[in-house]
């Protein structure tokens, strides 16, 4: 930090310290002197504005660069591999048999408990904080699908006894009820549809289908695009049938997305990245074909 006295040649002195002033790195006294000088000097004020704008433009330019959507997936896999392998390298091998036996007993209990602390159903602010925290590292356009999946399938909870298909079709409405058979035909065997409806989260409306298989939960979330919104700025993780699919991990969730005419479609689950991407690839062609035919 710097301290200085202003007097003769005030402009030269002030400009030496403008960058530290912008970075808020000057001592209070020096900061005050710079401010005082700026108030009476249009040229130095203009120079301050230029430097401030240049810094803002630089930050915006750097942050405009897309991060590979599968990078987080790769890192998580690497960590999981290291975490499991590390046990033996750290001399834990001799404990392995005993721990494995304990795990057999514990697993039956563990699967009935949530894997992480979740906000209560009535804690709406806590839910929003959770969603923001989990999705912090995602590109904005991928956050859309994850937010509705967590809000609707996780917090609102899917019904243990799903309603009849006719009721789900009715909840989807006449324009979207045809999506249900399309998805059911392409979803892997063993998944049962537990919820299908129109819902809303964070000011947006969604078509939301939820499937369950042995405790694994998977959502197809569809939203109308906002102006200028597209997944196209990201790097595709796969491109089955010529449809680019973008995927990224957020916490324990995997979010895959693809453009479908005026819509954004997402497959969100807590499956592995590979499985989630495979299911998205299975669904993409049929879902896109249906949605591009859907009237605006």
């Amino acid at each position, binding site marked *: 930090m710097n301290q200085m006295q202003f007097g003769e040649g005030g402009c030269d*002195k002030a400009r030496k310290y403008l960058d530290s002033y912008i*970075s808020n790195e000057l001592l209070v006294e020096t900061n005050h002197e710079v401010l005082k000088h700026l108030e009476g000097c249009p040229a130095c004020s203009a120079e301050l504005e230029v430097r401030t704008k240049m810094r803002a433009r630089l930050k915006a*330019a750097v942050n405009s660069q897309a991060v590979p959507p599968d990078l987080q997936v790769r890192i998580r896999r690497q960590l999981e591999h290291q975490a499991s392998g590390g046990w033996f390298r750290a001399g834990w091998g001799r404990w392995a048999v005993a721990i494995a036996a304990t795990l057999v007993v514990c697993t039956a209990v563990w699967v009935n408990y949530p894997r992480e602390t979740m906000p209560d159903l009535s804690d709406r602010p806590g839910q929003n904080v959770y969603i923001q925290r989990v999705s912090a590292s995602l590109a904005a356009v991928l956050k859309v699908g994850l937010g509705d999946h967590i809000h609707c399938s996780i917090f609102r909870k899917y019904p243990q006894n799903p309603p009849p298909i006719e009721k789900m079709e009715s909840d989807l409405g006449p324009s979207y009820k045809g999506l249900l058979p399309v998805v059911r035909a392409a979803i892997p065997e063993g998944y049962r549809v537990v919820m299908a409806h129109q819902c809303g989260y964070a000011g947006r409306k969604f078509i939301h289908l939820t499937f369950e298989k042995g405790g694994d939960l998977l959502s197809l979330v569809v939203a109308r695009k906002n102006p200028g919104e597209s997944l196209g700025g990201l790097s595709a993780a796969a491109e089955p049938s010529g449809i680019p699919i973008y995927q990224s991990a957020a916490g324990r969730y995997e979010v895959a997305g693809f453009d479908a005419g005026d819509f954004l479609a997402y497959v969100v689950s807590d499956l592995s990245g590979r499985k989630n991407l495979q299911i998205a690839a299975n669904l993409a062609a049929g879902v896109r074909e249906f949605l591009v035919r859907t009237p605006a």
Partner: protein
Amino acid sequence: MLFSKTPRVDEFEAAALPHLNDIYRTAARLLGRGTGADDVVQDVYLQAWKSFDQFELGTNCRAWLFKILFHTLHHYRRKWLNFRMVNDGEQILEQMATGSPPIPEHVTDEEMLAALAEVSQDFRAVVLLVDVEEFSYKEAAGILNVPMGTVMSRLSRGRRLLRERLAGLAHSYGIGDEPQEGIIA
């Protein structure tokens, strides 16, 4: 205390992964196009995971990750980090005070990034840490393991060089051909 020394993956992910984008973008800007920023970032997270038991939860995880990033880059590109182009001296502050080259009113992201790429890497690193990632001088000094005065002088020089590159762009647009005191933003 059977598990006390084994950090949990979910704790690490919660603390470290939110900073992935910043780490990647900084690595990419320092390494340049197509030079394996992905690999470096994966290595950073691997190194961070291995030493996570030394990290105190609740302290500045972001600065810790950036320190690992620069340590990794140091090994990854030992040559350029060992090659000292910097002349740390008070004259740099003097240079900042004299002359203010004009920059174009509208600069695209590509033009800005191209200009940044032309700034020497030691200077670029400090500009990225302070101006883009908004670390304090003290934090940047800790990340780069250099004195705070070095951060200040490199920052001034880096900003000056960036501005000169942008001024070159302005010149190509016909801006700044006339001598002028004011600067176009």
